[in-house]
């Protein structure tokens, strides 16, 4: 049951974090270490891509909640992409879905990011 994390910087302060495999009480610490590095005031948005996450338990959920809490305090945001049915069910059980911002597809995320970039460029003019 391995877990693998990759992080891609899309723009200044915007990261797409893809976590694959099993995020459980054995692997969450390694995940948390990698996420902690991104939890600075310079981070505006982390999008967790869960397309390849096959298993999630409450230990993993805690890392997502912590990231959201820390970023919220510095004006940043956490969003989610591609929730697989069993991952979605865990979030449903703890009643997290209503307060989560979820992109249903990469296209939806790209449209959102394009709009954000446009805003930044227009703001600079």
């Amino acid at each position, binding site marked *: 049951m391995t877990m693998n994390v990759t992080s891609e910087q899309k723009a200044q302060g915007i990261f797409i974090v893809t976590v694959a495999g099993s995020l459980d009480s054995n692997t969450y610490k390694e995940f948390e270490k990698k996420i902690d590095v991104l939890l600075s005031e310079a981070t505006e948005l982390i999008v967790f891509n869960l397309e390849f996450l096959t298993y999630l338990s409450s230990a993993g959920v805690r890392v997502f*909640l912590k990231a959201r809490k820390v970023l919220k305090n510095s004006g940043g945001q956490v969003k989610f992409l591609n929730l697989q049915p069993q991952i979605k069910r865990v979030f449903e059980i703890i009643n*997290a879905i209503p307060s989560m911002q979820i992109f249903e597809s990469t296209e939806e995320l790209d449209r959102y990011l394009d709009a954000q970039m446009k805003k930044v460029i227009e703001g600079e003019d």
Partner: protein
Amino acid sequence: MKTEFKLKNDLVEIERLAGRVLSFGREHDLPDELVWEIRLVLEEVVTNIIAHGYADRAAHAIEVSIVNSENDITLSVRDDAQPFNLPEHPQPDLEIPLEERGIGGMGVHIVREIMDEIDYKREADGNVVVMRRYKY
């Protein structure tokens, strides 16, 4: 119809637990959804014991059994940890926004949502929790 195994009180054992559950599921041809539920419930219960059950730093054994019957799956977890009455543990308030909610109790809540019956017994030297999931 039954598998039994012992885990040490170390979170690296969660990987072995998952492996045992997945092979039990394959041997008994259980649906993926049910195997996932068994894995999640056992992980939450065992993690809780390892994280909160012991006042010392000594090695302890946690005994797990999975029984596949015609109408249900029965999971039993026996430990020598401090008393912890899982079915009577206070329910977290799920209406409170996540940021304001205490994160404790999330695992116990998941267990209670998935399982249909949970029995708890305190024995002289530890806890026994027996959980049942109906198949139909």
